[in-house]
C-alpha cells in the first residue's frame, strides 16, 4: 500500500520520529469525557450529575401518550423539535424542572408571543409529560458507531491493494490478512488499514478475535567506540535510552548531546508516512475489499 517506489519495509527512522509510539502513548489532551447523567454509571463510576429517580413506566407511557396527542404537532413526536416548536429534551426549563412544577404553568398559560397556545391539561397529566421528557436520553457522546460504514467499492479496493497502494510489499491476502473479514468488524479493519496495528481498535472486536499486536520498535545504540547495542525499545528521551536485548536483558544508557547515537526503527513507519497522503475514498475501497476476505 505504498505510494512511493523503492520503499523498504523497515525504514530507518531517526530517533526524533518515533511517532507511532508517541501517538500510542499519547495521554488524552482532553481528559476523558464523563458520561452524562442520563447514561447512568459507566464502569462503576458515579455520574457527574445527579440522576433523576426513574418514574414508574406507566407514568412515562401515559406522559408520552398525552404528549403525542397534544404537543408533538409542534415539538415533534420525540420532543426533539419540529417545524414550529423547539427541542424540549435540551430545553432549559425542562432540564431545571423536577416533577412538572416549571412545565405546568407554561403548558397551562402558553407563551403567546412565541406562538405557543394554552393547553387545558390537568397538572397530573403535565406531570406525566414531564416524567416522559425527563426519561429521554440527552447525549451519546463517544459511543462507537453501529451504522454500516461500508460505502466503498471492493473491486477498486482490490485494485488499489495490488496496484497503486503497494500493499503486497508487506501484506498478503493468503498470509497475514487471510480471513481478516471474519476476524474483525469493518470499522476495526478500516482503522487498522490506516494505523497498521494497535491504534484505532476498540475493545469489542468481532467474536474472539485476538487483540491486534503493535509490532515493537527496534533501537540501535551506537557508542563513539563503535560498539553497538540493539534490541526492542523500552523508552527513550533526550537524556536516556532503554531497551531489551534479544535474550530479555534490560539495559539503559544515559545520553548527552545525542551521544551515544540512537536510531529507532518502526516497522509501521510506512503507515505513518501515509497519514498525510491518504484519500478517504481509497481507505473506504480497501475496507470494502478486505471485509470480503472471509
Amino acid at each position, binding site marked *: 500500500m505504498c505510494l512511493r517506489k523503492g520503499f523498504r519495509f523497515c525504514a530507518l527512522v531517526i530517533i526524533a520520529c518515533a511517532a507511532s509510539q508517541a501517538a500510542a502513548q499519547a495521554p488524552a*489532551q482532553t*481528559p476523558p469525557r464523563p458520561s452524562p447523567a442520563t447514561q447512568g454509571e459507566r464502569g462503576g463510576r458515579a455520574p457527574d450529575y445527579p440522576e433523576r429517580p426513574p418514574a414508574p413506566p406507566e407514568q412515562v407511557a401515559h406522559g408520552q401518550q398525552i404528549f403525542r396527542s397534544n404537543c408533538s404537532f409542534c415539538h415533534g413526536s420525540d420532543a426533539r423539535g419540529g417545524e414550529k416548536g423547539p427541542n424540549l429534551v435540551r430545553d*432549559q426549563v425542562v432540564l431545571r424542572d423536577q416533577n412538572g412544577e416549571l412545565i405546568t404553568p407554561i403548558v397551562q398559560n402558553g407563551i403567546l408571543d412565541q406562538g405557543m397556545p394554552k393547553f387545558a391539561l390537568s397538572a397530573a397529566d403535565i406531570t406525566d409529560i414531564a416524567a416522559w421528557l425527563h426519561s429521554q436520553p440527552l*447525549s451519546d457522546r*463517544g459511543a462507537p458507531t453501529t451504522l454500516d*460504514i461500508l460505502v466503498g467499492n471492493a473491486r477498486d479496493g482490490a485494485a488499489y491493494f495490488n496496484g497503486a497502494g503497494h500493499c503486497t510489499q508487506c501484506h498478503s491476502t493468503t498470509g497475514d490478512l487471510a480471513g481478516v473479514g471474519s476476524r474483525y468488524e469493518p470499522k476495526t479493519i478500516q482503522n487498522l488499514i490506516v494505523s497498521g496495528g494497535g491504534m484505532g481498535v476498540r475493545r469489542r472486536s468481532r467474536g474472539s478475535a485476538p487483540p491486534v499486536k503493535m509490532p515493537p520498535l527496534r533501537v540501535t545504540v551506537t557508542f563513539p567506540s563503535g560498539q553497538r547495542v540493539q534490541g526492542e525499545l523500552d523508552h527513550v528521551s533526550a537524556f536516556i535510552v532503554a531497551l531489551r536485548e534479544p535474550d530479555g536483558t534490560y539495559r539503559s544508557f544515559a545520553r548527552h548531546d545525542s551521544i551515544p547515537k540512537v536510531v529507532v526503527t518502526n516497522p509501521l513507519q510506512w503507515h505513518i508516512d501515509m497519514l498525510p497522503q491518504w484519500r*478517504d475514498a481509497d481507505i473506504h475501497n480497501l475496507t470494502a475489499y478486505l471485509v470480503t476476505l472471509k
Partner: protein
Amino acid sequence: MTRTPALLLLTSWCLAGQSLGGQALDSALLAGPVTDAWPTYAGDYSQRRYSTLSEIDTANVRHLTLAWVRRLTAGPGSGEGGFFGPPPGPPAITGGVAEEPVTMPGSTSGPPRLSGSILQVNGILYVTSPDNAWAVDALDGHILWHYWWKSRGGTHIGNRGMAIYGDWLFFETPDDYLVSLDAKTGAERWHREIADFSQQYFSTMAPVVVGNHVLVGTGDDLDAPGFLQSFDPNTGDLQWKLYTVPMQKGDPGLETWASLDAARHGGAQVWIPGSYDPATQLYIFGTGNPTPAYTATLRAPRDTHTNLYTCSVVAVNVNTGKMVWYYQTSPNDTHDWDATQAPVLVDGMFAGKPRKMVLQASRNGYFFLLDRTTGEHLLTAKYSDAANWADRINAKGQPVRNPAKDNTVAGSLVSPDNGGATNWHPPSYDLRTGLFYVVLHEVYSMYYLTDTDPRMLVGLGGSEQDDVGSLGTSIVAIDYQTGTLAWKYRLVGGGGGGSGLLTTAGGLLFANDGSGSLVAYGLQGRKPPAPLWHARIGSIENAPETYTVDGRQYVLVTAEGAVWAFALQ
C-alpha cells in the same frame, strides 16, 4: 537583577490590601513581565509566560536540584500525606452546599489533579484542584491551610487555579460556585452560584482580577449558552454578564444562526482565562465550540451561518461588559476545536510598523495574529503540517471547512484529533527571541458520525473518533511576523508534553517532555533548543512557573499529585 523594586512593590501592595481590606492589584505589577511573584494565572496579564528572572541560566541549570516536594491529598482528611515524612497538615476547612457530597477520587480523597496555575504572592503558594485549595510555604512546601468544598457533582475535569485581590482569594468549583477565601486563614468569605447546575454547567476557569472586577467563566458540554461574568470582589455581587451567543431577538450575530433557539443552545463556553490590556481596558479571551458539536445541520444550514461568537477571540471592555471586537478562528466548527487557547499579548513590529497584537495558536492547527486594539486580522498561518480539514483561507483569514472532513458515516481521516493541534496548555512568548513557543500534536483520527438524525444529537453526542496514527508531538517556534516555524523540536519517545511552557530571561525553556520529565532547554535563537537538564518526576500536570523567595529563584511544577520546587544547589 531587578528583584528589589518588584519585591518592594509587591510588599506594599500586600500591606495595603491587609489594611484596607482589599485593594486592586497594582496593574503595573501585572502588566509588566513576570518577575519575583506569580500573582495571576499566567504570572502577568499578557499570558506570555516569560519571566525576567535570570539567576538560573543556560550555564548553571545543570546544578538545578530538588528544593522540596509536597504531596497533597484531596478531601476532608489530613492535607498532608506521608510522602517524604513531615507531620500531617492541618485538617481541612470545609465548605460547600451539598448535604451529602458526591464521592470522587481527586475531590474527596486521594491524589488531586493539579493541572492549574499556582499563585505565589509574598512567599505563599496558593494551589487548587477540583474542590480543594491549599496555601503552601514557597520556601519549604509546608501546608498552611487546606480548604475542601463538599461537591454536589459536576464534571471534575480540572481546576485552572485561583485569583487574588489583596488578601482575598477566588476560585471556581465543578458544581458552579465562585468561592472567596481569606488568604491568611483559608476561611470562606462567601460563595456565589455562577451557573445553573441543572444545565450541566461545570466551572474550572481560574478567575482573573482586573481592577474592581473578578472575571469568571464556566464550561458546559450540553447545549447551553456560554457567558463571561464579572463579580465584585468585596461583596460577590454580579456586575455584568456577557453572553457569547445571541440570546434575544435583535442581538448582534443572530443572523449567523439558523434560529434564535439554535443560538440560545449554541455553546461558546468560556473556560480558560483571558488576557488583559491595561492601555485599552480590554479583556481578551477565547470561546468554545458550537453545540451540538459534531453536526451543523440544524444550527448552520447555510454558508452564512458561522455561529457567532463560537470559536472566537473576543475583546470585552472590563468596565462596561460590552464586546468591543471579535475574530472567529473556526467559522461553523464541527470538530469541537474551540478557540480557548491563551490569547497572548505582544507589542512589536509587524510589516514594518509597531503594533499592539494578540497571538493565538488555535486548537484547529492554525496560528492567528490580530491587532488587539481593533481586532483587525493581520495574519493566518498553518502551524500543523498534519491539519487537513480546511480547503482554503478566506478573505478574512479564516480557514474554510472541507465538508468531506466532517464526521461521516463511512469515516473521514482528519487531523487534528479531538484534543487538537494544541489545547488549553499554555504556550510561551519569548521576549528575547521574539518567537512564540507552542506544543504541537499531529495526531490523526478517523471521525465517524454515529447518528444520521441531527435532531437526536445534543452536546458532544453523535461522533466516534478513533486515533489511528501520529506524526508526533513537537515544540514549535512560530515567528509571528511571518507565521513560519523557526524550528520544530520533536519530543522523542512520548506523546504527552502538553502541559504548558515557560521561558525565562536566563535563556531557558521549561517543558514537559512527554516522557515523564521536566526539561530545561537552552534556547539558541532560530536554532532548535538544546536539552540541558531534566528531572524524571512522573506525569507532569501543569505549566512550569518560576518565582523568587529570599533571593533564590525557584522553578515550580506539579506531577503525580504533588508540587515540586527546584532551585540551584
